[in-house]
């Protein structure tokens, strides 16, 4: 057994939900981490979940999954090799246990035996290999292709599967918990990506993309202390008001996201419980550090001081969140820089930096759409108000939601973005801040920062590591291109008849999207 921090990689950068986030850093390897329950769960009932996202153009192909609907479907129908527990630790699922070589470049997973699919098919090691291979190769159209790219070889040995990686990666078990990588039944070495079969807690009765799905409990499910509902129903309700109406009128038991504008009113509704889970999800306003005027850090600083973070948290998040400090590390995380001065709205300092930049006023466009994050456009409007006081004329350009990620994000110099956050500092930084990283949305390249990133990844000494991450947050905050005003909690609501464990997972909405498996009716 080797002691090292484990990383997980919901590395896909899209849809409403991105990234996994573990509250803590260190956790234990191996088959451990029992689930705790607040009260003794009881079986029965039909769970009706209303979801804000989900499109008629969704697909069964795991490689294409991107939104709440498909991902919740994935976790309700399937199992994965590993699972992230509510406390953020990594625990076994279909992989009974795993063993890494000392250089962490070779991983041996022992596959649980006797696991039965809905179709009756019994899980084999070949299924595992086939399921992963589906995402590999240069003809792969899977969004998870980059994630599995480092796997150079998979060898089956009885119920063991031996993975060989291009380079050592201590976080491989986390990688395998990615929602793109469910284990599906294979026939002669290949899976049918369009299959409706799975070995998860519930089997699909009926599924219509963009509309909803119904499930019934999988009697042969191998977990005894899970999946308490007899049946599960997923319903897509795009319109916030309609969603809340459905909950209030008792037509659904759970809505995965509440309209923050009116959540305070929703809270008063009888029999309704608002559930807010603080995670590392944060909203940002990235600036292209190569493009004028943002190439000048003074301008960036001016913009950072011209925004009223608290107002945004109060208005846009209606208080369901925390102010951000222009770096992506959440206060709950291990190496969160507690000494870093919190930036606050300060027009004078903004003016000072403008002066440093040699201008007395500034005109910039910011391109926003609510696709970037809920309330992005409103946030822009509020920002432009406060910025005006600092002599910055910020012009909010509303872009169509449709096509935002391909036409605006990382295309225009000043726009909006959001991140589910990453469980570890390294993964977060290397995904979106490292020089040349595919999703370095600010096109930021800071020599010192990049050195530290590499050093920290290899460093095993906790204190040194802390210092490095503190400095990196400092640099990111004072010189980075990302303006990160707020960390947003996941805010959903459910009927008071619905029960859940003491700790609700914060790596995803819907209790890590395992609500169907983990929750129950009182």
């Amino acid at each position, binding site marked *: 057994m080797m002691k090292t921090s484990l990383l997980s990689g919901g590395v*896909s*950068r*899209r*849809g409403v939900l*991105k990234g996994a986030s573990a509250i803590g850093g260190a956790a234990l390897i191996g088959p451990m981490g029992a689930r705790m329950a607040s009260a003794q769960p009881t079986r029965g009932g039909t769970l009706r979940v209303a979801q804000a996202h989900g*499109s*008629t*153009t*969704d*697909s*069964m*192909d795991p490689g*294409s999954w*991107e939104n709440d609907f498909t991902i919740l479907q994935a976790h309700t129908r399937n199992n994965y090799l590993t699972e992230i527990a509510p406390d953020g630790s990594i625990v076994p699922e279909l992989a009974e246990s795993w063993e890494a070589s000392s250089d962490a470049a070779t991983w041996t997973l022992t596959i649980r035996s006797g696991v039965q699919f809905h179709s009756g098919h019994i899980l084999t090691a070949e299924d595992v290999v086939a399921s992963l291979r589906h995402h590999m190769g*240069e*003809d*792969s*159209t*899977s*969004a998870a*292709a*980059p994630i599995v790219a480092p796997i150079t070889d998979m060898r089956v040995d009885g119920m063991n599967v031996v993975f060989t990686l291009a380079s050592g990666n201590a976080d491989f078990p986390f990688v395998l918990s990615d929602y793109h990588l469910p284990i599906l039944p294979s026939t002669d070495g290949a899976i049918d990506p*369009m299959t409706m079969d799975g070995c998860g807690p519930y089997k699909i009765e*009926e599924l*219509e*993309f*963009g*509309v*909803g799905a*119904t499930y019934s409990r999988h009697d042969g499910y191998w977990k005894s202390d899970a999946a308490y509902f007899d049946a599960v129903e997923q*319903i*897509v*309700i*795009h*319109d916030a*008001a*309609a969603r809340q*109406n*459905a909950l*209030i*009128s*008792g*037509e659904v038991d759970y809505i995965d996201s509440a309209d923050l504008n009116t959540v305070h009113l929703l809270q008063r*509704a*009888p029999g309704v419980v608002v559930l807010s889970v603080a995670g590392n999800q944060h909203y940002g306003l990235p600036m292209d550090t190569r493009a004028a005027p943002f190439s000048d850090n003074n301008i960036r600083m001016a913009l950072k001081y011209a925004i009223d973070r608290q107002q945004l948290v109060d208005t846009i998040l209606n208080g369901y969140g925390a102010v951000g400090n222009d770096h992506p590390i959440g206060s709950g995380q291990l190496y969160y820089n507690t000494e870093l001065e919190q930036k606050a709205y300060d027009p004078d300092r903004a003016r000072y930096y403008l002066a440093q930049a040699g201008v007395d006023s500034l005109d910039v466009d910011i391109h926003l759409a609510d696709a970037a994050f809920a309330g992005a456009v409103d946030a822009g409007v509020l920002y432009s108000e406060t910025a005006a006081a600092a002599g910055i004329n910020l012009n909010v350009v509303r872009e169509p939601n*449709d*096509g935002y*990620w*391909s*036409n605006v*994000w990382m295309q225009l110099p000043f726009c909006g973005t959001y991140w589910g956050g990453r469980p570890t500092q390294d993964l977060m930084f290397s995904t979106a801040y490292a020089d040349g990283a*595919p*999703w370095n949305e600010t096109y930021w390249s800071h020599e010192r920062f990049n050195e530290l990133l590499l050093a920290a990844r290899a460093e095993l000494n906790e204190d040194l590591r802390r210092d490095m991450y503190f400095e990196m947050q400092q640099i990111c905050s004072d010189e980075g291109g990302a303006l990160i005003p707020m960390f947003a909690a996941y805010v959903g609501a459910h009927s008071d008849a619905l029960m859940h464990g003491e700790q609700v997972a914060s790596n995803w909405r819907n209790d890590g999207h395992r609500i169907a498996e983990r929750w129950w009716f009182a």
Partner: protein
Amino acid sequence: MSHIWSMIAKRLALGLLTLFIVSLLIFGATELLPGDFAEEFLGQAATPETVAAIRRELGLDLPMHTRYIEWLTGVLQGDFGNSLSNRRPVIELISTRLGNTLFLALYAAAIAVPLSLMLGILAALFRNSFFDRFSNASALTSISFPEFFVAYILIFWLAGRGGMFPSMASFRGDPSMAEMLYRTFLPALTLTLVVTAHMMRMTRAAIINLLASPYIEMARLKGMKPMRVIVKHALPNALAPIINVIALNLAYLITGVVVVEVVFVFPGLGQLMVDSVAARDMPVVQAVALIFAAAYVLLNLTADVLATLSNPRLVHRR
């Protein structure tokens, strides 16, 4: 009668031409939209390799005209192709939703048309009375509220906790007719409120237009009761414009209700169209657009035929 048949034939031919041009327009527009299917499909996860792979796989790398012609030849052989995103046959994808859309449209029409005709006739009968002005005003009010807003108000009043109607019209499996009528009552009512005013005003106007004509005076001089004068003498001659407006509104009920679908979580074509446009899922977009266009064309044709039939001068030539 023969001339009517020839007219129908001619109009159908024109209709086909219209459909063809519509498909061209939609195709062009969708091409003009920023980003293509591959990019939209992978969204933020897009890497050059995967995008390229998808384009290769779906032949999106072929030039525009080749793809259009391919699609067209397919359609001419009755094959609308598969959805790019979930590979299901477009026909299968559309059929159920088309059913829903038609159901809702007919439901709403079944309430709205008789209602507006009745109101229109009464308004014409008691013209300039309080009833006339009031029904007119309230009709105008109802159309000047945004659809989704009307919907919210209805939901607030008639649904809500312990309300008498469900706020969600969606149903899975195959429920009984009564069940469907019950679940889709609110959306139908919303649409009714939206379309009634237009038809009612037209009915009223069309009838009042004729009241000055000699044959109406003749009817009154024959001692006919006012109601009979309106219904028996004015209405038959006012049918043409009324039918026309009804057709337009029916077309709207089929093609224009995406907002209502969203609010009431009703799986209709509108939502499908919007989603497919967002995903640049060309075959689906095209198919739905064609259905909408066809509905419009056919309804107008029907309207004109009925209008012709309602006019003896055009049916029985000398």
